[in-house]
C-alpha cells in the first residue's frame, strides 16, 4: 500500500470516529441536563461549556454568556470551524476519495451518503428542533461505516490502517470525554446528593460513550467515580474502554509489523509498552490522580501517532 494513501486511510478512520463522538457528546449532555437532579447540572451554560471543553475550543470567559444556538452550530454545522462535525465528515470523505480504489464501493457509497446527509442538513431545523435527529443519524451512519469497514474490506493492511485510526481516535476521544466530565463532576459537587464520587455526571459520562447499560449489567450498582472510571479505562471487555482500544491498536499494528525482534524504536514496541502499563493497574492508582493520568495518556496517544507517521507514512 502506498504510504500517502495509508496516511489518508488512517485519518479517514479517525475523522469518522471523531464525528460520532462529538455528535453523541452533544446530544447526551444536552438531553441529560434537561432533567438533571441538581441546579448546576441543569444549567444550560454549564452544558454548553462542557461541550466546548470536549472539542477543545475556548470556553466562555468569566462574565460571558454563551449563546446556545451559536455553540450548537459551531459543534455541528460550522464549515469554518475545523472541529465541527461537518468539517470532520468532509475530511473523512476527502481522505476516502483519494483512496477510492482501495476501499469497497459499498464503503465509499456509505461515506458519500453520510457526507451529503450532513451537507444538506437544514441549519435552522437543526438549531430549533433537529438536535436529536441529527445526532442520532450521525451515530447510526458511523456505525454503518464501521460495519462496512469490517464486513466489506479485505482484512489486510488497508483494514489494519483504518482500524488503527478508528481505535486511536476512540481512545483519544474517550480520554477527552473523561476529562470534560471529570471537570463537570468537580464543578457540580457540593450540595446534598451531589458528592463527587456519586455525581450524576458519571451516568452521563457512561452514556456519552454508549456504555451505561453494560456498566449496569457488570456492576449492578449506581455508577460511582471509581466504578465508572474502572469500567471505561481498565475493563478490556468494555468495547469503548481505553484498554480495549489499546488491545485493538496492538492487534492491528502487528499486521503492519509482525517482527518480534527487540526494536525499541518501532511503533509496535511503544504500543505494547503503553498497553502493558495499564494492563495490570488498579483503578485506585488512577482515580486519585486523574489529571495526571489524562495528561500522560494523551501524550502516549500522540506519541503513538507520531511514531506511526514516521514509520509508515513517511513519503
Amino acid at each position: 500500500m502506498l504510504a500517502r494513501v495509508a496516511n489518508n486511510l488512517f485519518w479517514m478512520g479517525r475523522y469518522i470516529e471523531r464525528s460520532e463522538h462529538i455528535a453523541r457528546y452533544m446530544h447526551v449532555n444536552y438531553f441529560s441536563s434537561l432533567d438533571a437532579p441538581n441546579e448546576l447540572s441543569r444549567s444550560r451554560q454549564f452544558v454548553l461549556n462542557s461541550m466546548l471543553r470536549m472539542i477543545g475550543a475556548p470556553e466562555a470567559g468569566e462574565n460571558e454568556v454563551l449563546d446556545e444556538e451559536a455553540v450548537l452550530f459551531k459543534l455541528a454545522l460550522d464549515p469554518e470551524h475545523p472541529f465541527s462535525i461537518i468539517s470532520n465528515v468532509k475530511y473523512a470523505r476527502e481522505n476516502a476519495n483519494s483512496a477510492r480504489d482501495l476501499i469497497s464501493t459499498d464503503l465509499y457509497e456509505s461515506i458519500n451518503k453520510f457526507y451529503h446527509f450532513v451537507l444538506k442538513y437544514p441549519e435552522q431545523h437543526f438549531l430549533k428542533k433537529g438536535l436529536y435527529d441529527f445526532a442520532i443519524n450521525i451515530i447510526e451512519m458511523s456505525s454503518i461505516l464501521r460495519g462496512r469497514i469490517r464486513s466489506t474490506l479485505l482484512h489486510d493492511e488497508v483494514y489494519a490502517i483504518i482500524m488503527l485510526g478508528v481505535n486511536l481516535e476512540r481512545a483519544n476521544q474517550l480520554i477527552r470525554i473523561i476529562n470534560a466530565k471529570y471537570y463537570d463532576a468537580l464543578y457540580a459537587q457540593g450540595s446534598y446528593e451531589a458528592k463527587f464520587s456519586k455525581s450524576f455526571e458519571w451516568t452521563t459520562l457512561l452514556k456519552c460513550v454508549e456504555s451505561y447499560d453494560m456498566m449496569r449489567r457488570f456492576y449492578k450498582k449506581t455508577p460511582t467515580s471509581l466504578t465508572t472510571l474502572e469500567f471505561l479505562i481498565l475493563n478490556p471487555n468494555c468495547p469503548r474502554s481505553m484498554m480495549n482500544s489499546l488491545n485493538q491498536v496492538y492487534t492491528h499494528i502487528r499486521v503492519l509489523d509482525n517482527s518480534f525482534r527487540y526494536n525499541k524504536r518501532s511503533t509496535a514496541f511503544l504500543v505494547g509498552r503503553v498497553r502493558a502499563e495499564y494492563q495490570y493497574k488498579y483503578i485506585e492508582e488512577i482515580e486519585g490522580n486523574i489529571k495526571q493520568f489524562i495528561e500522560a495518556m494523551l501524550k502516549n496517544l500522540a506519541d503513538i501517532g507520531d511514531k506511526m507517521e514516521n514509520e509508515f507514512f513517511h513519503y
Partner: protein
Amino acid sequence: MPKEDSTIFASYQRDPSLFDEIYDAKGQIKDVYKTLFQLYGGHSIPDYMTLNEKARSSFFNQGITFQVYHDKQMQEKIFPFDLFPRIIDSKEWEVIEKGAIQRSRALNLFLWDIYHEKKILKQGVVPLELISSSENYLHQMIGVDPPGGIYNHISGTDVIKHNDGQYYVLEDNIRCPSGVSYVICNRTALKRALFGVFNHYETHTVTNYAENLLDLLESVKPHGVDVPNTVVITPGMYNSAFYEHSYLAKTMGVELVEGRDLFVENDFVYMRTIKGPQKVDIIYRRIDDQFLDPLEFRADSSLGVPGLFSAYKKGNVTLANAPGTGVADDKAVYTYMPEIIKYYLDETPILNNVHTYHCSRPKELAYVLDHIHELVIKPVDEAGGYGISIGNRLTKEEIETVKKQIKEHPRKYVAQPIMSLSVHPTYIDETSSFEQRHVDLRTFTILGKDRDFVLKGGLTRVALKKGNLIVNSSQGGGSKDTWVLK
C-alpha cells in the same frame, strides 16, 4: 394498452428530416426497439419522473460527480444520464467492432513507422509536413521500441450515424481517452432504476472491461519481468476524470498512484509504500505526455516523475499509452486514415471517414472559404469540442472572423461537410417528455501483444440542447446506456 395521452411517449414528435435510431426506413418502429418502446410507453409522466430521480440519486450516492463553482460555493453535479437506452443489434455492432480494431491496428503501425523508418512519409503517402509541423510529434520517441510493440494500447473511437444510415468515424482518440467508467455506471444506474427491462433483452455485459484491460496491459510487460506490478497514475483527486482513474484502479485491483508516489532509481521505477520501495513495471498513465517527466518534457510539471522517460527508453517500464501517440489522433492525420489503413494492412476501411478539406492545401482552402456556410471548421489540435465552428449557425460577422483565422493559420484548420448525427428519443426535463436529440458513440478498443478487445457497448453521448450537434460533456452533453445485443 394504457391511454395514449397519459404516457411518456404520447407527445414524441418525429422530424422526418432527421435520422431517428428507433425507426426503420419505412417509418415503423424497429423490431429491436418495439418491446422497449412498449415497456417505457407504459409509464405515466410522474412515474417516469420518479425513476429519473432514482437514477440521479444513484449517481449521486456513488459519488460519480464533477465539481462546479457557484456563488463561491463548491457544488457537486452529476453528468446528465438518460434512462432510455440505445440499442445496437449484433450485425451493426460487428461492423463497428471490426472497424475500430482495424483503425487501432493501422494507427499502431503508423506510429511505429513515423518514429522509426518513416516509410510512409518517404513514399509520399502521407505528407512529411503533416508530421514535422505537428506539436505532438515527440522527437524523444524516435527509435524507441515500446514493450510489445504497442503504442496505442487504449483507443477511443468516436462514431456517428449519418442520415444515410451509415456509420462514420469522427475522431480517433489515442492519448488518454476517457469515458469508459461512465459506460459501466450508466449500466448500473439503469439496472437500479429499471431492472425489469433487462428481462426482455439479451445484452452483452460491459463490466468485463477492467479484467481485459489488465490482461492486455500485462501482455506488454517489460522484458524479463515475471509477474508485473501494474499501477494507474492520475494527476490527483481534483482532476475531472479522477472518478474514472480510481474506478479503473479498483476494478483492476491495482494501485492508483500520483507522481509523488513514484521515483526512479538506476532507470527502474519504484513506488513508496508503507513497507518501503516496490518496483513498478506497467503504468497506465492518465497524465498527458508533456507532464510525464519534468527532466524530459515540461520542467515545471509536478504531476510526473523525474527520470521516468529514461526508464521507459531502457525498456524497464511500460507506459500505456506510449508517449507521442498524440501525433496520430490529430485531425489532420485523420483525413489520411483510408490511405494509412490501405498502406499498412492492405485493406479497405471498414468504417467510413468523413471527407475532409485541408486548409493547408491552397485549392481546398479556396473551396472552404467559399463554402463555409455548409461546412464544419475544426482546429486540428483541440479536444473536448472547443473551437469548432458550424457554418450554417454563424452570423455574417462570425463567418468573416473564422475566415480570417483560417487564412492566418491554414495548417491549424480542417473542414468537413456538416454531418447530420442521428437522433434518439431522450427524456427532456424542461418539457417532461421525450424529444429527438443528436447522439454519437465512443467505443473503446484495447490492443495487446497478440490479442485485442473491443468493449461491447460504448458511451452514447447526447447533445441535450435542442438541435445541438456537439455532444461533449464539457458542452452540456449527457449520455445513455448502450446495449449491444447478443
